[in-house]
């Protein structure tokens, strides 16, 4: 390669540049080139170093786990809401007695009392033999028949009714012994607390994973800085501020984070899709197994994940860089 450029034919590094047609043509070819260069500026810190493909892959894995944890959080929340809503809407009266006749008689009395109570919209009776059938899966066929299983009266009523349960209880007590009003409170509370623990667990996992993403960003930012130490030193010498250099690193990590997080999100959505298909193939939404539906309700919260991963990695990288730059002159 020659030291002497062909442009303009003028001797290089001569303070006095001779104007002429040659330098004019150089200017016009320059303007032509200008159309193609300079739209996108090269990042100042190159792709090499610890950041890049491996970091993208790790963040993808982490993001998919985070998205699944978040999905679990949403699924449990939805399921708990379904259960409690169902139980909240109804009350049950258990009718006990020494034999079937007594149970039936007391059932009739109870139904009369209930029908006369304002605010009750619907009364459904499950007589003792039918209630016994419900126990068959646990006790075996025919085994519950001799137990004089209490009859169940399910009541659907207004909110007023729920608030005046003591009145109703008193009236039932007065009408007949053996009538027990159950508002499912116990059951409800247990379900709610179980659901809350599940949610807390899911959220804890999500938070831990975010912490892992930040830790990885710290390592990667440090390694990246070390790999680009020469460049960082030069940037300082030409007048770059710490903030400027940190912004360069931050931008790169944001982009890498975004890339990784979206790949991870796609993996998670794919996994949930498979679960939803499997659930549908089993044919039922079984009790206690929360139904997974492939819906926007589920997917939208998961979009938080790429955002959170980007922010966690970018902010961490920025802080890491600023901290280590402060040690330099």
């Amino acid at each position, binding site marked *: 390669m020659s*030291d002497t450029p062909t442009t303009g034919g003028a001797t290089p590094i001569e303070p006095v540049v001779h*104007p002429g047609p040659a330098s004019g043509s150089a200017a016009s070819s320059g303007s032509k080139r200008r159309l193609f260069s300079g739209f996108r500026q090269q990042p*100042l810190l190159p792709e090499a170093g610890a950041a890049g493909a491996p970091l993208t892959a790790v963040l993808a894995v982490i993001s998919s786990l985070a998205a699944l944890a978040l999905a679990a959080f949403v699924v449990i929340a939805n399921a708990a809401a379904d259960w409690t809503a169902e139980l909240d809407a109804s009350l049950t009266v258990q009718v006990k007695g020494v034999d079937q006749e007594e149970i039936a008689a007391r059932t009739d009395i109870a139904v009369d009392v209930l029908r006369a109570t304002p605010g009750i919209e619907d009364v459904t009776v499950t007589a003792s033999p039918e209630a016994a059938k419900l126990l068959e899966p646990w006790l075996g066929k025919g085994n519950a028949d001799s137990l004089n299983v209490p009859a169940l009266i399910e009541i659907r009523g207004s909110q007023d009714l729920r608030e005046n349960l003591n009145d109703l209880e008193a009236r039932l007590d007065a009408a007949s012994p053996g009538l027990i009003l159950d508002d499912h409170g116990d059951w409800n509370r247990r379900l709610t607390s179980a659901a809350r623990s599940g949610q807390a667990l899911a959220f804890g996992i999500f938070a831990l994973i975010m912490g892992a993403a930040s830790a990885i960003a710290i390592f990667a930012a440090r390694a990246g800085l070390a790999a680009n130490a020469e460049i960082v030193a030069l940037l300082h010498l*030409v007048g770059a501020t*710490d903030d*400027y250099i940190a912004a360069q690193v931050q931008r790169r990590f944001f982009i890498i984070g975004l890339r990784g997080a979206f790949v991870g999100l796609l993996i998670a959505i794919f996994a949930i899709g498979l679960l939803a298909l499997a659930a549908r193939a089993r044919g039922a939404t079984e009790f206690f197994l929360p139904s997974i539906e492939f819906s926007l309700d589920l997917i939208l919260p998961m979009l938080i994940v790429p955002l959170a991963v980007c922010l966690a990695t970018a902010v961490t990288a920025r802080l890491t860089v600023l901290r280590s730059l402060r040690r330099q002159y």
Partner: protein
Amino acid sequence: MIVGFDKVSLSYGDDRQVLQDLSFTLNDGEFRFLTGPSGAGKTSLLKMIYLGHKPSGGRLTLFGEDVTNAPREALPPLRRRIGVVFQEFRLLDHLTAFENVALPLRVAGVNHSQYREDVRELLNWVGLGDRVDAYPATLSGGEKQRVALARALVSKPDLILADEPTGNVDPSMGEKIMKLFVELNRLGSAVIVATHDLHLVKALGKPALTIQNGTLVPADYSGFVSTPGSAKASASVGRTKGVSPTSSIRPPTNQRPR
């Protein structure tokens, strides 16, 4: 006063004292050579001036500000007023010649559209108009030298430092580069050129600081320390350049009709 050294010393790490008790000043518009045998500490001295290394003792003044204990945040604005041609160029390999030259402006937050013309003009001027989009790996030593030179000049610094700028070029190119520094000095910038080529120093007849074993020593030839004549000459030229880094590059616009 552009640069003031008051009993400045420098040691790297443990006890290795590189420079001891250096005192000198460089005034507005002054030109100084910095000579001495290899390893005498020329590069180390320049390094302290361009704020690449903190002095370990004494007082260092830049542009009238005491920077000896200046906080980090105060350094970037000062560094932007200094253009450095590093001995080993220190071009960024992943950036084109254009982007390398534009780096000081980009880092200072100047918009790309504002410096595009200037950078191209400057590259034309150093004879690299057709290598604008070339990467350093494809440039020859002399071409890299000129990219580094253009990068040092692009922000129109008040102080230009050059470390062995003729070390990688043939003698005639070396002479041209030296004349360029003299010309830039005539146009207002203070200049320090480190070189071990005493012929060039003598040929240009500019004052020189000589450094030996880490201390400044008297020169072994005439016209050595800051002759009054040169100071007067630079004062009469005055400072002709604009303040804004976005106005067009000084030497070409001053020299070339468009």
